[in-house]
């Protein structure tokens, strides 16, 4: 991959991360806004080694945990695992088609929520199974949709296929 294209990709990831914090912190949109942080980790994991993806997940997770008084570190653990598995998924699945990426983002975000809610100290509203089997897939669908939209914008602006 040419260096300029590589740079453009990381700028795109940075924009996705900033968009996440703008939506969730500056605007306070809560669950009305998609989880773009997981999307950023999953997309970057497809282009890096497992250790680098884990590190990216760790640092972004720590940032997200900065405002959590009771479960500090939970998102760092979750995104570290998701990042590493995302990078390793290249060994199993090759492909850059939109349908594949949508499925990848959906499964990645669902896995994120499952790990997060199974950790101790995290708050679960209502039944755990309902959260994992209804709320989490819906949130995953929303995140995958937002991720695909962002990726389409990126590909349109860089001409990348």
């Amino acid at each position, binding site marked *: 991959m040419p260096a300029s294209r590589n740079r453009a990709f990381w700028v795109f990831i940075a924009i996705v991360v900033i968009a996440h914090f703008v939506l969730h912190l500056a605007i*306070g949109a*809560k669950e009305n806004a998609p989880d773009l942080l997981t999307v950023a980790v999953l997309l970057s994991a497809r282009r890096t080694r*497992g250790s680098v993806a884990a590190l990216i997940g760790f640092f972004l997770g*720590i940032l997200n945990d900065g405002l959590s008084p*009771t479960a500090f*570190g939970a998102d760092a653990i979750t995104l570290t695992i998701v990042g590493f598995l995302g990078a390793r998924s290249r060994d199993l699945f090759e492909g850059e088609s939109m349908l594949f990426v949508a499925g990848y983002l959906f499964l990645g975000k669902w896995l994120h929520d499952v790990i997060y809610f199974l950790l101790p100290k995290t*708050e679960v509203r209502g*039944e755990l199974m309902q959260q994992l089997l209804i709320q989490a897939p819906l949130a995953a669908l929303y995140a995958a949709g937002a991720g695909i939209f962002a990726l389409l914008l990126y590909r349109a602006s860089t001409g990348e296929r």
Partner: protein
Amino acid sequence: MLDFDGTRKARQRDVAIAGAVLLASLILFFLPPAFQAPIRTALRNSVLKPFLMAQEQIATRRARSVDVSELRAQRDSLSALVAAQATLAEENRKLRELNGLRARSGTEFRPAEVLRVGVPGAESTFFINIGSAEGVRVNAPVLAPTGLLGRVIVVDEHMSQVMDWTHPEFRASAMTAEGEAYGLVEARRGRFREEDLLALTGAPFHLDIQPGRPVVTSGRGGIYPRGIPLGTVIGIEEADTGWRKSYLLRPAARPDGASHVLVGMTGASVDHSRLFGMGVADSTRRVVAGSASDSARANAARRASPSSPARDSARTDTTTAGAR
């Protein structure tokens, strides 16, 4: 084709580094809250600060856009009220002087704007735009005009984090407004935030508290001042055979609707019952003075509620594993 051994070594190194990162995150997760707090503070005051400041700006702009005529009407009503009460206050002061009584300790509040964040783990909390520089302290009660919203758990220089009553760790020492039953109030979470209710636990078994009766803070826990409305009784939740009863309460104030709050600055020793027009029975006022008999009754309430701490939830920067 890559050399097999080289690839395997590289993969092993990759897994080892990822494992070390995971271990670091686990250590961070299980660190005692006292060690986590400085890291959180550093993050809030560095990388996350621009985003929090942006929300503060948005909240300020939103507050400024309130209809001026509505504000003017409220100001005029308050001016009339203050003017009418000024003579009474002066008369009261003179009478207290004549009787050799000290001035009644006042109540002091600071208004603050509510800032909400939508990150996981911060669901039952919100931020306010005042902090230690404005005199806010940890455990200061946070109130809406209709009742208690929560308490301050983290204080930065110009910003504080508040735990609202929907948090699983919320506890408040409470009593019925007439002072006939004492207990602990804690959250009962529904499937959605709108369904969240409060519950008065550890109430005496022999008493029947009728629906519609107001429940207020008792001032016993050392956190919340006495007389702040918590909610009104909806009905009985549970009757533990021969020991205690729990009642469901309709909350007096809901955190999701609050855009501005009042932060108590005077500590737990003051009495807010008149402020909220609760008319708490005079006989219960001795409770706050902390007589021996009251302590005994507080201990009895504590014994009656073994699953919950009898005091207001006072832990700061806390974590509780078994919240689920």
